[in-house]
């Protein structure tokens, strides 16, 4: 197992070592110690390795992740897994604002709470938050799924496009053009798949969730509104 102590090495050295790995590397298990809230830990990974970080990280941890699995044994600062392409990022504590922002693919799992703007402008990522999410989560969310086991803050899904939102607790207000939609069997099956992927097989009943999505009144041009422009 590769081990990097960030009390002795810089984040740049860690990331450079991870970027040097080839797709067929056999150095697939990495452990990072003493992150001490530093930013940009394990960003830009492009190979299927597992990086486990012991402690709280700062901003943008695992940003742009592709194929790798990044596990944070602690809290993550702003923008964890920002613009993730694929792979998995698992935060075992809380995540700060803009978790999974603009993510295009892969799975982000947050065991604790996520703060404001979780999944902002998400473009295909799947996000499962076991606690609550803050206000303006899934703002302008375009594609992908946001699953919240707890409550969602104000203005959930404001100006949403085609992302799907599943909330088990209370949504404290929906944003512009975000509405509750019927939970059909195919949605339950999709939610079941996401819950299983997040390690919640059997524990959580997909039937307890409400689904929210776009009313599609905002992002389609209406000829009736032509005079408004």
């Amino acid at each position, binding site marked *: 197992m590769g081990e990097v102590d960030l009390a002795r090495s810089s984040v740049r050295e860690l990331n450079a070592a991870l970027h040097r790995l080839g797709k067929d590397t056999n150095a697939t298990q990495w452990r990072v110690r003493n992150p001490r*809230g530093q930013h940009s830990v394990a960003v830009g990974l492009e190979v299927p390795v597992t990086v486990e970080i012991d*402690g709280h990280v700062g901003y943008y941890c695992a940003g742009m992740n592709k194929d790798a699995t990044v596990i944070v044994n602690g809290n993550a600062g702003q923008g964890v897994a920002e613009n993730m392409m694929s792979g998995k990022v698992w935060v075992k504590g809380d995540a700060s604002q803009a978790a999974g922002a603009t993510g295009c693919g892969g799975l982000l799992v947050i065991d604790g709470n996520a*703060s404001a703007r979780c999944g902002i402008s998400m473009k295909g990522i799947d996000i499962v938050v076991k606690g609550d999410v803050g206000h303006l989560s899934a703002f302008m969310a375009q594609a992908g799924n946001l699953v919240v086991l707890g409550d969602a803050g104000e203005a959930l899904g404001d100006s949403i496009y085609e992302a799907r939102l599943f909330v088990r607790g209370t949504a404290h207000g929906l944003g512009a053009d975000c509405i509750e939609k019927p939970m059909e069997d195919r949605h339950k099956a999709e939610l079941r798949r996401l819950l299983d992927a997040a390690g919640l097989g059997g524990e959580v009943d997909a039937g307890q969730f409400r689904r929210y999505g776009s009313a599609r009144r905002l992002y389609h041009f209406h000829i009736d509104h032509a005079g408004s422009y």
Partner: protein
Amino acid sequence: MCGIAGLFLKDRTLEGDLGALLAGMLAPLSDRGPDSTGFAVYGEGLDGTLKLTLRGPRTLDADALLKRLGEAAGGPVVHRCHDTHLVVAIPADREAAVRQVLHGFPEVAVVGAGRRMELFKEVGRPDDVSRRFGLARMSGTHAIGHTRMATESAVTTDGAHPFTTGDDQCLVHNGSLSNHNAVRRELIREGLSFQTENDSEVAAGFITAQLRGGRSLEQAMEASLGALDGFYTFVIGTEQGFGVLRDPIACKPAVMAETERWVAFGTEYRALVDLPGIDDARVWEPAPARVYRWELH
């Protein structure tokens, strides 16, 4: 940008380490705010005694000033020199006479006043400013500090935080207020005076006006949610403790941590990593538009 650090001690055995702990919190925030650094330390206070923190040029004849202050105070004033700042302790009932003397020294600014608060701020990076003032040797029950990246006004010592507008009260701010001119005009009508054009000083003044009106710190902070427009994270120091407030949109980052021995605020978690017992601390992000406060009992 800008960085804020705040530390409130529950365990009195840590009081001697307060300054060293705060210095360790401010240093990592240097890259959030390299322009100026300031801090307020709530140390020992004596009933009937007022501490004034004064700032003057290096060419100031401190002996001459102290002699004049002693005449106004009715006896020699206890004083400590910290680089460009001088902390003097005077009988509280001689404040007016002492301030009258200070009017005769236009190059000397009163940086802060209070029974317990001492306030220091200068242009420069936090590690440098902390060292110049000897922060690591200061003790007390709580302290707040700020590293500034200037946005709304110039890089000057006057524009550095904390801002104080009342005895033992101060405020540090990360953000930018949009209606500060209108609020400043109202507060001036109510009798407050301001030293700068800075938006953060208006927030400090607003809190002071609320407290003078008999409201609690919690009520004052709740009122500021309605009155102040813009984005902000405030940490507000009083003689008894400190409070934390983020704007409803939560534009600016904030992290809090708590153990049985202390409560700490940092703009980033990096500011907290050297606090004793941090690995076992409860660490969380304060919610938007919610008042948090810790006070001595």
